[in-house]
């Protein structure tokens, strides 16, 4: 992107409805082109938001952190360079590089790192993305540049310790130096003339690379939810039906290590809550035998469902999506066959299809990195690990509720679930609730996404409420499966946010949610800030059952209407809210 293109993007007309996304850029240098590229790339990534960047004073990074020029900012981008740690490490100072000064410079750096650390902690819970020095260290030490000096090794150790401490802060995302190196060659970053002339030290290309990476982490990242993988020459090397379960391979000995690495990655993703399924043209029994091998790196329990049959793969994909109850655009499809990929892609244009590079080791390495990029998360919690199991359980429930017992079908089945629903308040450290609010599409009151700053505001403002709903039944604990958020204004109940995980369908949890709101707030009616979206059909279906045809905006449901139409609710309700 050229500067001209960046300005043209920034200057595009916007509507008054576009919400702002406010970034506080904290640095000690003149931010110049970095601000321009931040705004332009931010605009590209969030076209319905108006990206605004504020910045502080030249030469006062710690002061800028404390000063908080924009208290309403949604996120902070902290860009640290060597001169911020000690001016003698920058080109615009002439404080002396004598060997006798080096220990003092290092002490000064340690003090400054401690100040920055405290200032960053003080900004919690505002999200902060941090970049540590990306420019080359000036030739300050007395050793030759090709040799790592004691001085430089000490500085880098101090930085590494500082970085390790910051990565433990929930509100901080530290950009990876290795990733910056990949995108922006170290020798192309420093613009000496610009630094000396106006105090902006970066080349245009480095400024843009930094801006792109910053924006990737400043703005909300939508994590994909699942992978549908092929088996032959993808999960393992070889054709199962030809060579048998014992002869397909995924090890160095079989010259099939890339398949083993792929299995390893899938197992890791499954443990962090990513759904895995198989779509393979294969004999189902043989597939189960292969998965039962003791040396299989991807445990069988991590995969559900397995579609092993001889029909079109798009049909298998259709069944997987139905079981998972998610959209095609939330899924990756991985297969070694270009023909299968084309067939699935034509049926599901929104699915991201990737050809497994069975003959290209470097491409396999790139695939592993791409999978991490698509599915990476700031943190994972215990509820992520149970996601697949709860889907498996739901499939069982739906199959059993259809057959039913004693001829009473659904009612008898729900009554026998031994289900318990717990309502409790959301807290700032509750990443699961925030993630659920921002990634749920189908049972979503209005499709509105919240920034972290808006989420914190919801949790901490008077008159507002944010409640999480957890569920368990005789099949197991499902974790947090719904979030309700809103406000009470003059005894009127307004629900502004309501999402429910698709894993929770078919159990009348949505009925319990409304019932709880009526009971807890003792209101006679609830105003739901509803808005139809292309994907909230399940929510619309639920509300239509009570209210008939829906309007295109807020609607109100009275207690009488709800109670007259609400089916029997069997679950035990636990409330841990004062």
């Amino acid at each position: 992107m050229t500067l001209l293109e960046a300005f043209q993007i920034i200057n595009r007309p916007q509507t008054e409805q576009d919400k702002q996304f406010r970034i506080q850029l904290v640095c000690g240098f003149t931010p110049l082109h970095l601000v321009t590229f931040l705004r332009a790339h931010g605009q590209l990534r969030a076209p319905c938001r108006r990206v605004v960047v504020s910045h502080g004073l030249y030469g006062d990074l710690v002061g800028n952190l404390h000063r908080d020029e924009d208290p309403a900012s949604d996120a902070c981008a902290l860009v640290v360079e060597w001169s911020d740690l000690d001016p003698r490490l920058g080109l615009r100072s002439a404080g002396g590089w004598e060997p006798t000064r080096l220990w003092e410079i290092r002490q000064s750096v340690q003090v400054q790192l401690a100040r920055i650390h405290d200032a960053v902690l003080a900004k919690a819970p505002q999200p902060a993305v941090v970049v540590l020095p990306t420019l080359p260290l000036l030739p300050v030490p007395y050793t030759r540049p090709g040799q790592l000096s004691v001085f430089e090794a000490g500085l880098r150790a101090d930085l590494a310790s500082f970085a390790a401490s910051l990565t433990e802060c929930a509100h901080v995302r530290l950009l990876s130096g290795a990733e910056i190196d990949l995108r922006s060659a170290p020798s192309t970053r420093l613009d000496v003339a610009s630094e000396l002339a106006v105090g902006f030290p970066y080349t245009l290309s480095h400024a843009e690379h930094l801006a792109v990476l910053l924006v990737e982490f400043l703005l909300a990242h939508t994590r994909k939810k699942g992978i549908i993988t092929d088996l032959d020459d993808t999960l393992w090397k070889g054709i199962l039906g030809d060579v048998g379960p014992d002869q397909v391979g995924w090890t160095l000995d079989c010259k099939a290590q890339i398949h083993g690495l792929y299995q390893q990655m899938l197992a890791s993703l499954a443990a962090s809550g990513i759904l895995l399924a198989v779509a393979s043209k294969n004999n189902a029994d043989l597939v189960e035998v292969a998965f039962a091998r003791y040396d299989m790196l991807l445990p069988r329990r991590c995969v559900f469902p397995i579609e092993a049959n001889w029909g079109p793969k798009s049909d298998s994909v259709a069944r997987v999506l139905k079981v998972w109850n998610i959209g095609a655009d939330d899924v990756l499809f991985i297969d070694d066959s270009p023909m299968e990929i084309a067939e699935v892609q034509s049926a599901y244009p929104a699915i991201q299809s990737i050809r497994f590079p069975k003959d290209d080791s470097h491409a396999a390495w790139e695939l592993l990195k791409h999978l991490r990029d698509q599915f990476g998360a700031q943190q994972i919690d215990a509820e992520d690990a149970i996601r697949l199991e709860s889907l498996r359980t739901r499939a069982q429930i739906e199959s059993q509720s259809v057959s039913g017992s004693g001829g009473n079908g659904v009612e008898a089945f729900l009554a026998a679930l031994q289900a318990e629903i717990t309502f409790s308040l959301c807290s700032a450290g509750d990443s699961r609730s925030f993630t659920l609010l921002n990634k749920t599409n189908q049972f979503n009151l209005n499709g509105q996404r919240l920034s972290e700053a808006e989420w914190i505001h919801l949790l901490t403002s008077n008159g507002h409420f944010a409640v999480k709903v957890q569920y368990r039944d005789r099949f197991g604990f499902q974790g947090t499966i719904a979030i309700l958020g809103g406000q009470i204004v003059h005894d009127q109940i307004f629900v502004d946010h309501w999402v429910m995980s698709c894993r929770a369908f078919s159990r009348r949890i949505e009925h319990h949610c409304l019932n709880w709101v009526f009971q807890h707030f003792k209101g006679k009616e609830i105003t739901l800030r509803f808005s139809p979206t292309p994907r909230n059909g399940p929510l619309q279906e639920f509300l239509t059952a009570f209210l008939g045809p829906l309007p295109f905006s807020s609607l109100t449901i009275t207690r009488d209407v709800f109670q007259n139409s609400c089916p029997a609710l069997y679950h035990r309700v636990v409330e841990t809210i004062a």
Partner: protein
Amino acid sequence: MSDIRERVMSCFCSLFPTLSREALQKSSLEAIPDWDSLSGVVLLAMIQQEFHISMEPIDLEHLGSIQSVIEHIAAHAIADADET
């Protein structure tokens, strides 16, 4: 020349989006509202990227107007074409 004029005007218009094209064309550089040393730095960076020619801030000061900037760039563009 008209292509160069158009591209130079794009640079100025993007840097000063609130001003009309006509107002910019009539104005000297220093008389442009919001013109400051950093505007000059950004403009020079844009010109370098768009036209692959290097200019110093002192060059801008001497040129003084958008028309002069256009002529300067056009002259350098012709010189480069002659050298190749």
